[in-house]
C-alpha cells in the first residue's frame, strides 16, 4: 500500500502501550522533521476519565516536540485530507473508536451494521495512512476472556478481532507490549515474526535516549 508506514501497537490495560507509542511517534517525527499529531478518540463520560485524559495530555506535553491534538471519536476518515507526508499521526485507540461507532447504534446491532462499521474504520485508517509519513495505531488486547453468550458482545469481539487482523496484515510493524516491554510480532510486509529481540532493543534504546534528551 502506498503512503506512510503503518505501526500497530497493542497490549493489556496499563501495559505501557501508549507511552511506547508516543515515544515511537516522537522519534519518527524528530528524525523526519515532521509534525506530530495525536488523534484522541476518547469522549470523557465521567470525572475519572477526564482525569486520565488530562494525565495523558500532560505526559505528551513533556515531550521534545509539541503535539497537535485532534478529537475525533467517530468517522476518522474526515481527518485524512488535513494531513500530508510531513505528518506523523498517533491514534489512541482503535478499541475506543470501535466502542464509539458501535455503541452509538444502541443494543440491537446487526452483523450488517457491524460490517459497515468495520469498513468505515478500516477505510479511514487506509485514507489517513495514504496522507501521512507514519500512522501509529494503539489498541487493546481484549479477546482472551471467557465470555457469556451475548449477541452484542459476540459482534463486538468479532469486529475488533477482524480489524486487528486486517491492520496487522497491512502493517509494517506490529508490537505487543507486555509490562512495558514491546515485543516485535511483525516486521516488514507480510513477514512472520523472527522474534529477533534486537530490533526492539535497538528501538527501545533509541527511544529511551530521545526521551531523556527531551527532558
Amino acid at each position, binding site marked *: 500500500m502506498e503512503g506512510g508506514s503503518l505501526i500497530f501497537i497493542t497490549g493489556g490495560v496499563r501495559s505501557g502501550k501508549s507511552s511506547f507509542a508516543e515515544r515511537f511517534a516522537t522519534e519518527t517525527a524528530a528524525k523526519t522533521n515532521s509534525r506530530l499529531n495525536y488523534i484522541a478518540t476518547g469522549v470523557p463520560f465521567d470525572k475519572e476519565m477526564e482525569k486520565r485524559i488530562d494525565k495523558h495530555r500532560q505526559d505528551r506535553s513533556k515531550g521534545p516536540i509539541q503535539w497537535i491534538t485532534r478529537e475525533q471519536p467517530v468517522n476518522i476518515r474526515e481527518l485524512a485530507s488535513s494531513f500530508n507526508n510531513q505528518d506523523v499521526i498517533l491514534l489512541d485507540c482503535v478499541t475506543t473508536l470501535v466502542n464509539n461507532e458501535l455503541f452509538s447504534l444502541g443494543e440491537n446491532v446487526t452483523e450488517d451494521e457491524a460490517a459497515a462499521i468495520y469498513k468505515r474504520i478500516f477505510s479511514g485508517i487506509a485514507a489517513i495512512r495514504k496522507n501521512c509519513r507514519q500512522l501509529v495505531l494503539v489498541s487493546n488486547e481484549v479477546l482472551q476472556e471467557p465470555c457469556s453468550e451475548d449477541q452484542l458482545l459476540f459482534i463486538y469481539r468479532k469486529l475488533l478481532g477482524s480489524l486487528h487482523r486486517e491492520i*496487522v496484515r497491512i502493517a509494517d510493524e506490529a508490537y505487543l507490549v507486555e509490562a512495558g516491554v514491546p515485543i516485535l510480532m511483525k516486521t516488514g510486509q507480510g513477514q512472520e515474526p523472527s522474534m529477533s529481540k534486537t530490533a526492539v532493543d535497538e528501538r527501545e534504546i533509541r527511544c529511551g535516549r530521545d526521551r531523556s534528551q527531551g527532558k
Partner: protein
Amino acid sequence: MHFVTGGAFNGKRARVKETYPDAVWLSAYRGDSFAKINPADFRNFTIIFEGLEAWVKELIAEKDPDDIRALFRDFFSRWQAWEKADNRRKVVVIGTDIHKGIVPVEGELRAWRDITGWVYQDLVKKCEQVDLIWYGICQTIKGE
C-alpha cells in the same frame, strides 16, 4: 497432535485451513460432538477438532472438574494412539485462549476458565506442536 490456540477472532481457523486443506472438521461452534467420530472408524488422514473450550463448557454443569479433565485426557489418548499408528495421520485441536481477563464474577465462567486451562495443559503435554495465533501471525511455542 497439533494444538492451535490464541484469542477469539484472531485467525486460528484460517491458519489451520491453510495448513491442512484436506481435513475433516468437527466443530463445537456448529454443534458437533467431539465424540461424534470413533478413531477406529475414521478413514481420512487428518481430523480437526475446533472449539475445545466450548466442549469443556458444555460439561461444566453436569460433571466435576476432575471428571472433565479425565474425560478429555482419555479422549486425547485415544486420538493420539490413532495418530501414532500411521505416520500420515494428524490430529489438530483448536482452542480459544479465554484466560487473560480479570477473574469473572460469575462462578460458572470462572469454573469454565479454570477447567479449560487445565485441559489445555493436559493436551499440550501430548502435542508435538503448539501454535499461538495473534491476529493472523503464528508463533510456534512448542516443537518444530
